[in-house]
């Protein structure tokens, strides 16, 4: 059986895989959202999704440790590692203390933040193309990239919430945690203002430059609004 399902939230994916495993549907492979399932005895395996330090592979140490603990690496997909262990061999939790959970989610958040930036860059590129060429497909791609960027940013925020929840549990909601977030917020606003200045300075001498100027202006406005919105959000969540 093959099922198509793309998850952006690894905790929900883990839940889904374990629910199906309980019904005797065992995941045995993954490619670009297509999951291959095999019929086994219900509840034979337990699944976990981990995050690797490397793209598309795991270290030799990681592999040998999992091997030793009788954990099978089912699939590595980008930074994601799908693992399983026989239920008979006991409970299966990857991270058993708050410190390592925080570390784990911080790595995940870094990925989402990086990919959000890439999507934003593509969004800008598509927008310039769309304006320059007047191609309806360009606008479509632009919207797709924009939606992707928003989705990823929301997931990064969701991960941040998990991290602050863990921090609170640890009783260490002191210095380091909120500070970078505040910086990030003011950065968006600053980027908006800078882009706006760039747009004003741009000479619309050619058709391409004219389109680029328009694109930069639109982005600057979005960034400024986003910056203002995010700043308010921090004030609200602080209280």
């Amino acid at each position, binding site marked *: 059986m093959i099922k198509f399902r793309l998850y952006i939230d690894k905790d929900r994916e883990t839940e889904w895989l374990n629910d199906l495993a309980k019904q005797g549907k065992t995941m045995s492979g993954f490619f670009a959202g297509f999951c291959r399932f095999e019929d086994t005895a219900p509840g034979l395996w337990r699944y976990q999704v981990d995050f690797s330090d490397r793209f598309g592979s795991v270290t030799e*140490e990681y592999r*040998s*440790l999992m091997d030793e603990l009788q954990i099978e690496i089912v699939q590595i997909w980008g930074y994601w590692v799908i693992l399983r262990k026989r239920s008979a061999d006991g409970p299966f939790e990857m991270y058993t203390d708050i410190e390592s959970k925080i570390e784990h989610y911080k790595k995940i958040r870094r990925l989402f933040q990086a990919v959000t930036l890439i999507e934003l860059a593509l969004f800008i590129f598509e927008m310039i193309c769309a304006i320059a060429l007047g191609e309806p497909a360009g606008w479509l791609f632009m919207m797709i990239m924009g939606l992707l960027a928003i989705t990823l940013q929301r997931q990064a925020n969701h991960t941040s919430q998990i991290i602050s929840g863990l921090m609170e549990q640890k009783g260490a909601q002191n210095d380091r945690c909120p500070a970078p977030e505040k910086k990030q917020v003011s950065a968006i606003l600053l980027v908006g203002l800078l882009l706006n200045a760039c747009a004003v300075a741009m000479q619309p001498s050619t058709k391409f430059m004219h389109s680029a100027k328009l694109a930069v202006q639109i982005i600057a406005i979005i960034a400024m609004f986003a910056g203002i919105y995010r700043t308010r959000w921090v004030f609200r969540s602080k209280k």
Partner: protein
Amino acid sequence: MEKHAPLTEAIFYILLAVRTPNHGYGIIQDIQTITSQRLILGPGTLYGAIQSLVKKGWIQMYSEDAHSRKKKEYIITEAGRNAFEEEKMRLEELLKNAELMNETNV
């Protein structure tokens, strides 16, 4: 001696478990035994801790088993022993001071 932040429970017990050469499964088993099944380390937690301890130079690879090339053993280093000793002194101070609580009970 260099000042360190208090060790996490996982780090404390991993250092203890590699006082003699020990491998992944053995570390988990030993910790489980000496804490009477209270502390069972997850594979992700153990892997992350080993990586950071090796990076700090508190533990090192002891040998790669010649027969099953997969099993990796670790052993504590001098720096690791110092860090552990420092933590032990901190914990002893905590316990000693904890006695003060009893004085108010009289």
